[in-house]
């Protein structure tokens, strides 16, 4: 007979619960529920727990639940983890219904200016994360989850992917370091994960292993949709191999840098000025561009320093980065504003795009603005600025035809 406990650790208990489960030989289900939302959802909770136990074929058990207002997807995940800890040979997944709102797709070339990290075993921030409009939301299975809770986080993240509306943000998961991260993939790939972040990536083999495992799962589950990859470079060796990592698979769409571990690896401290990481950042931008993927900057960890964040983002932009990590929703709008093209940039970009399109229409092989020749990378950058200007509302979609053109 098995016995297990699962649930919140530490102070923060909101919208989570603790479950203690002990399977028995006889006596049926003995359920004791203490709930903060007893009046509103006590009966619904009891029904859900009984449904879950019967799904797993557990007929006799003592179950004690301290409920702090856990949403149904949280309660389901916690129950599943408790059952699997108590009876290790159970493998079934107690899946909540896949909501339509969770089925939208992503695009290879979409903006990835902001990606908001959410601790994967911590349900409270998941529900409203998408309201703050980050370009991507990362459900994290790695550093924010303690080694003993990886199983709990996996089922919670899986349920969140099936139930929580992220309102159009790209649905990302950061798996654990390879090889452990490979075990995370079956929990997330069948549930419309758009992008997988591979932490502490040091070789193209890391990327290929992830790619192969994803292909295998996709085949089993009959999924045709692409799953994008964003390796995170966090070491001296990773920086040296950045180009081969970025070009290890066609599914890699972006390359990110993680400076916390990198600075430790090169034997120094991380500073706000960031001189110690200049080489790594610029190498990463160069490698990403060479491989044709987006270079993405590290997180800015002082949540209260809005000015510092703005400066750091403007610097990242000037170095060639296209995005930055966030650890708090308040950072999102600051980063978006900093990445917003200036009026000057937009005007210049409009001119370049216009002459390029005109040259194309006239089938000219050379594009020039005034006396200056314009090469394809310049056109590409200009197109990117125009696209961003349209997305951020600084330029009308039909700017060429409504008087905003040249």
């Amino acid at each position, binding site marked *: 007979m098995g016995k297990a406990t699962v649930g919140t650790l530490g102070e923060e208990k*909101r*919208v989570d619960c603790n479950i203690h489960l002990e399977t028995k030989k006889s006596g049926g289900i003995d359920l004791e529920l203490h709930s*903060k*939302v007893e*009046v*509103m*959802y*006590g*009966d*619904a909770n009891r029904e859900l727990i009984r449904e879950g136990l019967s799904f797993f074929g557990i007929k006799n058990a003592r179950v004690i639940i301290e409920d*702090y*207002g*856990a*949403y*149904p997807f949280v309660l389901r995940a916690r129950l599943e983890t408790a059952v699997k800890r108590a009876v290790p040979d159970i493998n079934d997944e107690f899946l909540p219904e896949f909501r339509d709102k969770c089925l939208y797709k992503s695009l290879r070339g979409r903006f990835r200016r902001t990606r908001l990290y959410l601790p994967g075993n911590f349900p409270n921030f998941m*529900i*409203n994360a998408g*309201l*703050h409009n980050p370009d991507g939301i990362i459900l994290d299975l790695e550093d924010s989850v303690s080694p003993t809770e990886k199983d709990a986080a996996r089922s919670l993240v899986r349920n969140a992917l099936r139930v929580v509306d992220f309102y159009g943000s790209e649905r990302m998961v950061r798996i654990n370091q390879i090889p452990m991260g490979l075990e995370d993939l079956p929990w997330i790939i069948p549930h419309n994960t758009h992008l997988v972040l591979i932490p502490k990536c040091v070789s193209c083999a890391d990327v290929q292993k992830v790619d192969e495992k994803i292909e295998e799962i996709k085949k089993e589950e009959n999924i045709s949709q692409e799953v994008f990859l964003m390796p995170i470079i966090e070491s001296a060796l990773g920086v040296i191999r950045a180009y081969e990592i970025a070009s290890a698979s066609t599914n890699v769409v972006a390359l990110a840098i993680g400076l916390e571990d990198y600075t430790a690896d090169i034997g120094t401290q991380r500073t706000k000025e960031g001189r110690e990481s200049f080489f790594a950042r610029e190498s990463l931008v160069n490698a990403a561009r060479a491989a044709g993927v987006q270079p993405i900057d590290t997180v800015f960890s002082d949540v209260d320093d809005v000015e510092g964040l703005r400066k750091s983002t403007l610097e990242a932009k000037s170095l060639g980065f296209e995005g930055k990590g966030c650890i*708090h*929703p*308040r950072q999102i709008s600051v980063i978006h504003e900093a990445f917003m093209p200036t009026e000057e940039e937009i005007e210049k970009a409009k001119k370049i795009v216009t002459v390029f399109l005109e040259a194309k229409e006239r089938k000219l092989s050379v594009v020039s603005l005034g006396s200056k020749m314009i090469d394809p990378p310049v056109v590409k950058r200009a197109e990117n600025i125009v696209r961003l200007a349209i997305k951020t*509302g600084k330029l009308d979609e039909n700017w060429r035809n409504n008087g905003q053109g040249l």
Partner: protein
Amino acid sequence: MAKDYKLEENATGRLVPTTINGEKAVPYQGVGKYKPTGKKTAPPIATCADYPDDGNKVVGNLKTALLKAGIKDGMTISTHHHFRNGDFVTNAIFDAAAKIGVKDLRWFPSASFPCHAPIIEHLKSGVVHHIEGSMNGPLGEFASKGKMKGMGVLRSHGGRYQAVQDGEVHIDIAVIAAPTADPFGNANGLYGESACGLLGFALADSQYADRVIVVTDHLIDFPCYPWQIQGNYVDYVVVMDKIGDPEKIISGTTRITRSPDRLLIARMAAQFLRDAGIMRDGFSFQAGAGGTSLAFVDYLSRFMREANVKARFVRGGSTEFLAEMLEEGLTDYILDGQTFDLKGIESMREHPNHVDTSPFTSYNYHGKGMFATMVDAAILGATEVDVNFNGNVVSHSDGMLLHGIGGWQNTLFSGCTILTVPTFRNRIPILVDEVTTLTGPGELIDVVVTERGIAINPERKDLIKAIKGSDLPIRPITELKEEAEEICGGKPGKPNLGSRVIAAIKWVDGTVIDAVRQVLD
């Protein structure tokens, strides 16, 4: 306790008592429908011959003052809540009353706080019969469980003034805790250790009570000026060592919320005022001191600066945020009903255009007009809002009485009343099919701003038209409610309520808009 009341359906269809603690009560008839006639009440005529010529009304202690004021069984004792959760005076009054041995008092505070939990012992022992005023925290729970002998009555700040003025509530003894006072009884809240800003909530009490006692820990020589409370109304002055805990009376600094969801709501509310054209030169608004309100003021200030727009007046709940608007010239005046932080008090002391107001000037529905109707926009909270825009601020979805009405009902009369609420909080739906306790009718609630979108009352076609072209997410309130229910896991269950009415909710005109039932275990 046996039921000594009958229930009748009021204009909203809610069943309400027609007698409250033995006195007749009028069921709610609709907004602006009930217009009583007759004269206001008046205090007894006093004679200077009975008061000392040197103006010294100081007596030894609170007990002596209560005895001199003629305290008897069944009397009504009033207090004010300018000291919020740091009030030492109220508990001292009822401890003294217990020692004197009187019973069945009616406590008539302008609001109660968790620091008043000791009153529960006096309710149990019979010194206090019942409370007419907000019942927060432990007192709310005590009353909700049906343990209070009499029926509670909850009124708005304006409704409290109206009830006293109209003679619905006769105050036998008013006790006014005053941060600074002189021996004649002139008093203010601007100076002294326990400074709280103003004393407007005690105005009706000073004007209409039979006997008035001023209690202070900062007695100065005559004259105490400004005299927010006039000594000519005062019978006795008592000096206590400490009348309150300064740290709990006001906050040193008031902080904007850090919650990203609340910041989002605050920003959308400010943007609504801007995009609907309410934010324009010479406009006015009212916002409270909660974290979301402060963030709202901060965002609105930014928008006003960007658009070079200036307000004529701002009503508060003043805080450093309003004080800074005044200093910066973003508003000509602050009309202050209640001061929440040090900077607010300093501003009131120093700035001629930071004006103290009272429930009489701002909120009294039985007056010749009130400021509340002249405010262009009010930004308020709620514990529940329903699909008909009705609001609840006094109870939670579990049926427990937990908050007072404050000025909430009164401010609903603004030109554009905005409730800023999350659609749900920690799996507790805030947007519901029907509010547990009806505190404010939907016809006065114009806009509900949530983290998932903004609902505009369909009756406000002008606002719907004015906001066209804005990029704000305007959505039907039913859609927002359904989204909240989907996330929380279906329609919430209802609390198990008994038939007994434990408190009546008054509307601003003294009629009964709803009744609160006992919560069964």
